[in-house]
C-alpha cells in the first residue's frame, strides 16, 4: 500500500501533501488536549507494534502479498485523533529511514493510511459498535483497508489521466486490482485486529476498558 516515488503525476502528489498536511497539523494540535500522560507510552507501544506488523507481509492470492495497516487497531484502541498521529509517525519513519513509500508520495501515503483509513475505521466502528463489538471491529478493519485502497486507486487513475499515461495506472487495471487484492487483505486485517483486541482484553482488560471509556470521551 506504500506508494513509491515516480509513480504519481506531480499534480496528484502535491495535492496529497496539500490535503494531508493541514489535517495532520490540526490532529496534533487537538491531540495535545486529549492525550493523557498515562496514555502516551501505550500509544508509543502501539505505534511500534504497527511498524513491526507492517514489515510482515502475508501471502494473499496469485503470488501477491499484503500487510496490516493497523488503522482500525489504532482507532479502536486510541480514538481517531490519536490513531492518525500514531500512523503519521509510523509512515514518516518508514519513508525517511527505510525507503518504504516515496518521499514525493509521502503526502498520499499519509492521506490514505494515516487520515482516510483511521477515520473510516472509526466511523464504521462507532456505527456498528452497539450491535456487536467483534463484528464492528472486523468491519472497521476491512472497510478501512478497502477504502484506503479505493483512495489509492483514484490517485493512480488520476495520475494516469492527468499525465496522458506517463504516470499512474489506467483505471481499468487500478480499480479491479487494488480493490480485489485489498478485499482479501482487509479480511486478514479484520481477523488480526479482532485477534489482537481479544488477546489484549484477556491479558490486560484495563486497556480495553480504558479504550472504551476514552472513546466515549472523544465523542463528547
Amino acid at each position, binding site marked *: *500500500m506504500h506508494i513509491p516515488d515516480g509513480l504519481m503525476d506531480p499534480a496528484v502528489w502535491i495535492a496529497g501533501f496539500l490535503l494531508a498536511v493541514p489535517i495532520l497539523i490540526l490532529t496534533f494540535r487537538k491531540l*495535545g488536549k486529549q*492525550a493523557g500522560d498515562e496514555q502516551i507510552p501505550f500509544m508509543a507501544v502501539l505505534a511500534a507494534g504497527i511498524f513491526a506488523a507492517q514489515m510482515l507481509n502475508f501471502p494473499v492470492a496469485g503470488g501477491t502479498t499484503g500487510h496490516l495497516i493497523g488503522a482500525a487497531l489504532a482507532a479502536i484502541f486510541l480514538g481517531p485523533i490519536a490513531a492518525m498521529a500514531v500512523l503519521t509517525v509510523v509512515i514518516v519513519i518508514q519513508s525517511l529511514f527505510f525507503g518504504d513509500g516515496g*518521499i514525493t508520495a509521502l503526502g498520499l501515503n499519509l492521506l490514505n493510511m494515516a487520515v482516510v483509513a483511521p477515520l473510516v475505521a472509526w466511523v464504521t466502528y462507532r456505527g456498528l459498535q452497539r450491535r456487536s463489538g467483534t463484528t464492528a471491529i472486523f468491519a472497521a478493519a476491512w472497510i478501512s483497508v478497502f477504502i484506503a485502497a479505493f483512495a489509492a486507486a483514484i490517485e*493512480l487513475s488520476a495520475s494516469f489521466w492527468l499525465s496522458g499515461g506517463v504516470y499512474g495506472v489506467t483505471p481499468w487495471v487500478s480499480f479491479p486490482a487494488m480493490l480485489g487484492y485489498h478485499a482479501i487483505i482487509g479480511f486478514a486485517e479484520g481477523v488480526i485486529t479482532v485477534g489482537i483486541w481479544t488477546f489484549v482484553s484477556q491479558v490486560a482488560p484495563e486497556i480495553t476498558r480504558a479504550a472504551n471509556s476514552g472513546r466515549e470521551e472523544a465523542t463528547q
Partner: protein
Amino acid sequence: MKRNHVIALLAVIVAFAVFLPLYYLFSYGKNDALEQTIDEGNGTTGGTYNAPLSYGGNYLESLAFGVIGIIAVFGVTYLLLLAVRRRKRRGDE
C-alpha cells in the same frame, strides 16, 4: 513509563522475531498488492532518494533493522507526544 510498557515493547520485538521466519517462508521477494497492480498496469516507479536503512535481505538483517525501527518508532512517538502534551500544558498556564 511503567514496567508494563517496557514488557509490552519487548513482547512486540519477540512477536516480530517469531513471525519474521513466516514472512521469509511465504512472502519474501513477492510483490505486494500495489506493486502487483503497478506491474499489471505497466506503471513505472523510480526516485532519487536513498533511505539510510532498509528492511534487510535475510532473517538476521531484517530482525536487526526491524528492532531498530520498532525502537525508533516507539521513541519518536513517545517524545513527540510528550512534547505536544507539554506544549499544550504551557499554553494552558
